[in-house]
């Protein structure tokens, strides 16, 4: 596995400026962990895949049937070198299949337990996360991934419990969250998925669970290296003021660093397969004179291999002060693109919030701005989802009309996918 890093910097600063903005683009290559690839067993230390299924009362019927079917199909995908477990939860969590290798026999046993599940009871998400964390900790050296399926909102009694469970689970495993139907809360799932470095998505129709699970499990098994950190070394007098993953989606990492030494911070990025991700970083530096060249940061990707830290460096983030406005006002394409994508995400979220509280003018304005930004930046996926919530009159001008009737699922889908960005053009 190799990491290739590029940096894109606003390299000219106006006189007096003390902020440097940059994008660090990371590409991982050479992962041998392709599902079905026999080399995978030799080259990776293996993974644990945990499946967490909501079996509260509201799951009764189609949802339960589809979930059981999807879990069966997901288990079938696991190769024998993978370990897995299954947790079912309602008001409390039950470990219906403890941590095992994914042998045919173990898969068969697990499936039998899954098919016996019955829906009933409340929703206590913290119990499911804590039960999973215990299973993952049995084999801390492996990659830890969980897939979390729910259809409702967490019990009010569990609000504090969920916070503390997330604090315990952070850094132990990664977790993708899926909400089936429309009776769950996007913010709640986003809280879990962002804390656990995963994604949150809606599965509007129960029939969609199977395809989604298959894709998620395949992606998880393709990851071959875990505990990867984005390391930012700065000069003593410089400060990291922002660090966000901005592609494939926005994940704010700024407050989640670990201090390595006085000048070095590590930001968690979880496990990697063959993929590319972009990070937006910003620094506060001491001011300099015209023509002075300053180093703001040396970024790198760090991971452990056989107990040793392996570091892949990026080109340094360097800027020069100038009194030439033509230079200092020019924003690097990558930096501009992701600034735009963040604005797009905010416009959608603020637009939907305004719509919810009945502020039609604000909602129309913000969602219009979003349509314009999505069209300009080529974010087709988001544009398509926007067009289910508003009628786009003129994308270039940002003119939209709110639709009178919007499917709740479409609104939730737009909300959740607002942080998914289009990649900056190479």
């Amino acid at each position, binding site marked *: 596995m190799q990491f290739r890093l590029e940096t894109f910097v606003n390299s000219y600063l106006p006189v007096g400026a003390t902020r440097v903005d940059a994008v660090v683009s990371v590409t991982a290559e050479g992962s041998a962990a392709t599902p079905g690839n026999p080399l995978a067993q030799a080259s990776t230390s293996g993974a644990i895949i945990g499946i967490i299924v909501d079996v509260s009362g509201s799951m009764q019927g189609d949802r339960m049937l589809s979930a059981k079917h999807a879990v069966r199909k997901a288990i079938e995908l696991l190769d024998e070198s993978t370990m897995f477990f299954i947790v079912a939860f309602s008001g409390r969590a039950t470990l219906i299949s403890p941590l095992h290798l994914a042998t045919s026999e173990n898969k068969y046993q697990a499936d039998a337990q899954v098919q016996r599940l019955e829906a009933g009871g409340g929703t206590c998400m913290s119990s499911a996360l804590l039960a999973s964390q215990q299973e993952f900790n049995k084999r801390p050296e492996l990659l830890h991934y969980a897939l979390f399926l729910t259809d409702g909102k967490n019990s009010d009694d569990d609000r504090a419990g969920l916070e503390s469970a997330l604090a315990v689970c952070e850094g132990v495993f990664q977790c993708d969250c899926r909400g089936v139907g429309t009776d769950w809360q996007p913010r709640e799932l986003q809280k879990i998925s962002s804390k656990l470095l995963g994604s949150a998505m809606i599965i509007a129709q129960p029939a969609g669970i199977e395809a989604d699970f298959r894709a998620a499990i395949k992606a998880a098994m393709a990851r071959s290296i875990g505990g990867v950190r984005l390391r930012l070394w700065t000069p003593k007098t410089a400060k990291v003021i922002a660090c966000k993953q901005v592609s494939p989606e926005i994940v704010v990492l700024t407050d989640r660093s670990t201090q390595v030494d006085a000048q070095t911070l590590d930001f968690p990025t979880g496990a990697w397969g063959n993929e590319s991700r972009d990070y937006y970083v910003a620094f506060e530096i*001491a001011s300099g004179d015209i023509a002075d060249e*300053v*180093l703001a940061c040396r970024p790198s990707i760090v991971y452990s291999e056989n107990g040793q830290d392996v570091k892949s460096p990026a080109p340094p983030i360097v800027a020069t002060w100038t009194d030439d406005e033509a230079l200092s006002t020019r924003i690097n394409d990558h930096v501009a693109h992701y600034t735009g994508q963040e604005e797009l995400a905010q416009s959608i979220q603020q637009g939907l919030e305004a719509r919810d509280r009945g502020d039609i003018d604000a909602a129309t304005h913000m969602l219009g701005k979003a349509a314009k930004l999505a069209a300009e930046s080529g974010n087709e996926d988001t544009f398509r989802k926007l067009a289910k919530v508003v009628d786009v009159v003129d994308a270039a001008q940002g003119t939209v009309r709110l639709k009178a009737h919007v499917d709740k699922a479409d609104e939730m889908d737009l909300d959740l996918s607002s942080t998914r960005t289009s990649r900056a053009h190479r």
Partner: protein
Amino acid sequence: MQCESCGEAIEPEHRFCESCGHPLIESAVAVTPAPAPFAKTDKEKEPEPTYASSCRCGAQSDARDADGYCSVCGLKFDIVTVASAGRNHRETILNNTFVAITDIGKRHHTNQDDTGISLLPEGTGATIAVCDGLSSSCAAEAASEVAVAAILDALIKHAAPSDASVMRAAISCAQAAVCTIPSPQGAIGEPPATTVVAALVNGNHAVLGWVGDSRAYLVGPSADDCRLLTHDHSWVNTVVDSGEMTEADALASPFAHAITQCLGPLTEEDGSRSPDPVPSILELDIPAGTTLMLCSDGFWNFLSDPAQIAPFMQAPDFITAARQMIDYANGKGGRDNITVALYCPN
């Protein structure tokens, strides 16, 4: 026609002056074209830059990383020597605060001028020197080189407090160093000898010291900014100061370029060792917006008034200004080696 070196009458077809041996035709050897400065040809061929001894934030060279950045404040360490074609043409550049160019000129076979800079450890200033090895002496190149190194070394070691005594001591060190240069075997001419003008600048306070006719000026883009700071140890000044001759008469004399003091182990006519030179010292505050200029006579010979420097200082940056000064002296014939050093402390 007259020889421009000694003033004797010459025949047009002669290649050398019968009287003094001065070459009368620009030979291919003598004319060394200056390299195109900063023409980036091949990345590999770029010389390893020489970094300043400290960062402007005060961090010492151990804080400098492999790419030249300061690990404390992130600023790139100032780069000292940037372009060099050996001794014949060397440009020493330190961002926008210091530029020195020494150039062989058009007539001499060697460059006997030298110049250098050292930054003060706390990043508060610099020491600068310009030396002009005497052509009449043997080892003139070595003399100027040794004198620059010795004076910068002495100044940097004893920079604080920066006052006249430090400068006197440093010039005395340079004198001692020049006296240790062995005369090459079978050398003709006088022992190694050189002029010196040096500056110790701390903040905007400067201490100047000089021996001979290398000069210091305050210069700026306006004619009012430009004035001569030093007073040459020269025959012209001696006779003009004593009232013996008018300046115009003195300048017309064949002795116009003779100097009355220099560094080196000189002897009297009776063979006894001459006393050590007595340096002149001047302390001043460099006014904001003005620049300190040190130069050899290869440049100032073409000036009749310090105000003539102002147009050069209107260039967009120091490098351009200094190059234009060198070009100007070469355009006037480049009879001597040319050295110009510009330092702006603020």
